[in-house]
């Protein structure tokens, strides 16, 4: 025995380096995917914009048309410095950055902290010489490192195309700081809630609110935007005449405060507990819950409802801008010329179709979340108990797939309805956006189909479903900017169906998307019927 009872123990930290190494070893794939994916798409955008808007005259045209397009202000944010390469890229990339960077901070922190705690992974770890804060500090450190790499990669891409170093650095730093704010949100929410899914949900609600406040601020040109971390990133204005560092400091300060609060709370609570405690529930399951569809609905219902409410709000808020957008376009001859030259024609329906893409991406996210949770039934060992009863495999997966389709459809239609109601003030058309959302529904089935096909055939590669949705987002938001080949664009079911409601839906597109969706569903169900469980 080593010096019993002396009470002298070496102080060699709380195991932070051990946890850091562990998180890098178990999480490097996710870290690499985020960093490479974001920097890659960004670098490609820089290259494409440099080709399309190579001369000062071309950049001036951009400034006069897209740069003053209020549609863009709502979706991508205010385009500061849109007569420079960096400014144009920042604007074109605005939507992707506003969604992907916060999600990166949120998900990377949550997966190695609250998710690990919920799965019991921290119990053995904490029984070694690992302090209660170490997993959280390590996760913050690793995530911050990855975000810095993203910022450096973006700044590097700009430098390679001749953007001034100070501007490039400020832009990169502002993106890193945006991610850090959401890493802080995850750290604090991770102390308040026991379940990782709840932490992610809180983060997504914060992100949705940030997006809406930033859009209100940008379209109405008022101070609401200062409630939004997305505006703190944007308002550094790296490529405008007047770049500013203080919004960056605001973001870093909020990130540090949120993280600090979270870390302070970790040291005060029991392992596995949360500030919001769990409550007891009913002792018996009703007849509805005991049925297969009842279980599926109960499992996914709250998530889907939350997505639907979120989509309705996003649709309603963005629809309310339609008026202002029509006014601005009417007052700007350059913009009108640009719109009438394009295929779309009417600027308000062009704007509506942009917003509808947002709504559809939310519907895809909701459907994919259902599929991901179905997979966790299997990895968590609960599926075996279900299938050991007289439950047909295809019935079980089919029921969950049906709930995913119906839930995704609900989210899409709720968003379409929200959009239609508030946009009708400007368009006078109460049904247009809603009908368009309904016409996009085959795309929801296709997303669920891809998820079911992966579940049935390649369950361990289910993460590809999120990659596919990210790809659709890139196609819809950046496809034309990147001059992607038509074949690459057509892979997106939204693109295949057409820009609704600005264009009429393509009959062939609807048929092809529907046929692919059904084929994927069939293949997935058949594969699930014949494969090992669990795998």
């Amino acid at each position, binding site marked *: *025995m*080593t010096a*019993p*009872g002396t*009470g002298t*123990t*070496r*102080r060699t930290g*709380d*195991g932070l380096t*051990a*946890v850091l*190494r*562990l998180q890098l*070893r*178990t999480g490097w794939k996710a870290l690499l995917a985020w960093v490479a994916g974001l920097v890659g798409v960004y670098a490609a955008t820089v290259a494409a914009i440099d080709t399309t808007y190579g001369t000062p005259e071309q950049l001036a045209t951009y400034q006069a048309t897209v740069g003053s397009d209020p549609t863009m202000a709502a979706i991508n944010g205010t385009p500061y410095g849109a007569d420079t390469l960096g400014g144009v890229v920042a604007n074109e990339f605005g939507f992707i950055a506003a969604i992907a960077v916060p999600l990166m901070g949120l998900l990377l922190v949550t997966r190695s902290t609250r998710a690990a705690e919920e*799965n*019991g*992974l921290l*119990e*053995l*770890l*904490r*029984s*070694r*010489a*690992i*302090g*209660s804060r170490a997993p959280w500090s390590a996760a913050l450190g690793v995530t911050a490192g990855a975000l810095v790499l993203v910022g450096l990669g973006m700044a590097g891409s700009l430098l390679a195309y001749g953007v001034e170093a100070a501007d490039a650095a400020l832009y990169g730093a502002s993106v890193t700081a945006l991610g850090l704010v959401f890493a802080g949100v995850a750290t604090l929410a991770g102390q308040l809630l026991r379940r990782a899914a709840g932490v992610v949900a809180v983060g997504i609600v914060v992100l949705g609110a940030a997006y809406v406040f930033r859009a209100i601020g940008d379209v109405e040109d008022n101070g609401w935007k200062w409630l939004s971390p997305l505006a703190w990133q944007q308002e550094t204005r790296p490529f405008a005449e007047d770049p500013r560092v203080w919004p960056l400091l605001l973001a870093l300060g909020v990130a540090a405060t949120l993280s600090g609060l979270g870390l302070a709370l970790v040291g005060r609570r*029991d*392992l*596995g*507990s949360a500030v919001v*405690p769990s409550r007891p529930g009913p002792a018996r399951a009703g007849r509805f819950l005991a049925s297969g569809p009842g279980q599926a609905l109960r499992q996914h219902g709250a998530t889907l409802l939350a997505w639907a409410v979120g989509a309705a709000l996003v649709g309603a808020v963005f629809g309310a801008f339609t008026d202002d957008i029509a006014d601005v376009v009417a007052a700007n001859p350059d913009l009108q010329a640009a719109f009438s030259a394009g295929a779309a024609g009417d600027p308000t329906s062009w704007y509506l179709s942009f917003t509808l893409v947002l709504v559809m991406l939310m519907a895809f996210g909701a459907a994919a979340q259902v599929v991901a949770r179905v997979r966790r039934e299997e*990895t968590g060992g609960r599926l075996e108990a279900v299938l050991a009863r007289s439950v047909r495999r295809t019935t079980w997966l089919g029921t969950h797939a049906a709930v995913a389709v119906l839930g995704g459809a609900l989210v899409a239609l709720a968003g379409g309805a929200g959009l239609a109601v508030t946009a009708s003030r400007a368009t006078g058309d109460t049904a247009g956006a809603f009908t368009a959302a309904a016409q996009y529904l085959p795309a929801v089935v296709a997303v669920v189909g891809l998820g079911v096909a992966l579940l049935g055939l390649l369950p361990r590669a289910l993460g590809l479903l999120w990659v596919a949705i990210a790809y659709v987002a890139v196609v819809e938001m950046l496809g034309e900017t990147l001059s992607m080949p038509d074949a690459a664009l057509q892979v997106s079911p939204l693109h295949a169906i057409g820009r609704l409601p600005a264009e009429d839906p393509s009959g062939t597109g609807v048929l092809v998307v529907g046929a692919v969706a059904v084929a994927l569903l069939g293949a997935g169900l058949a594969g699930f019927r014949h494969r090992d469980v669990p795998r």
Partner: protein
Amino acid sequence: MPDPIIDVSGLVKTFGSFRALDGFDLRLDPGEVRGFLGPNGAGKTTTIRVLLGMMRASGGRVRLFGQDPWRRAVALHRRLTYVPGDVALWPGLTGGQCLDVLGASGAPLDPARRDELVERFDLDPTKRVRDYSKGNRQKVALVAALAARADLLVLDEPTSGLDPLMEEVFRECVTERAADGAAVLLSSHILSEVEALCSTVTIIRRGRAVRAGTVAELRGLARTTVHAVTPGTPPDLDGFDLHDLSVTPVADGGAGHDVTFTVEPGDLEKVLRPLVDAGLTGLTVRPPSLDELFLSEYDGAPA
């Protein structure tokens, strides 16, 4: 007397209005192997989590190596190892990688013992955790704990999921570690395991220690079971302090009787004398088993 390794008195832990631990006492001295028993939900795992500084005591006094485990968890964990009943490991890592991850902090692993235990537990360290069975995941945690140079082993139902052969290996290894001088706190539902390994026992029920002592003391409290077959009507046994007495005619229709009862070991001779005098055609005496004592304590029957 040496300073105790674990010194818990009047420990209270509440979750909202629920009192999981309600004035619980526990003591573990250096070199002692103590069984920690109790029905499901009695507070065993909560106690262990408080001892490990993962949960904070709501009241009472908790000392581990003379210090407060909540405030000094990290330093104290360099002197102990722990095996949870439900082992969760990182699905993408191999068993060998998990051992290294666990050994990277806390009580250091003895490399020679690590290799030896991997061999003895028949563990394939190149397999990924997601491909392990529950028993194999348990083995990873056991090897990590038993290979460590620690003064204290905290084991929470450590053999759940192990086959009998591996359970035997586990018993040998714990015995070796105890012979080296390590103290052991063994929470278990397998009474034979506790009887084989432990010198002392604490029984917890509804958050309180209802019984604590050496196994020999507890055996003294347990009752001996007697089954006698008499050729005729048995003698009157009313004067003795017998429990569970039953007298039934033997099944073959003769005059003989089956007599069964339990008696405190000290009274055994007194009660056997009239039976022997009356004549016996059969007699079995089962020595005191802890099972019955445990079961009655679990039940909450007054002992």
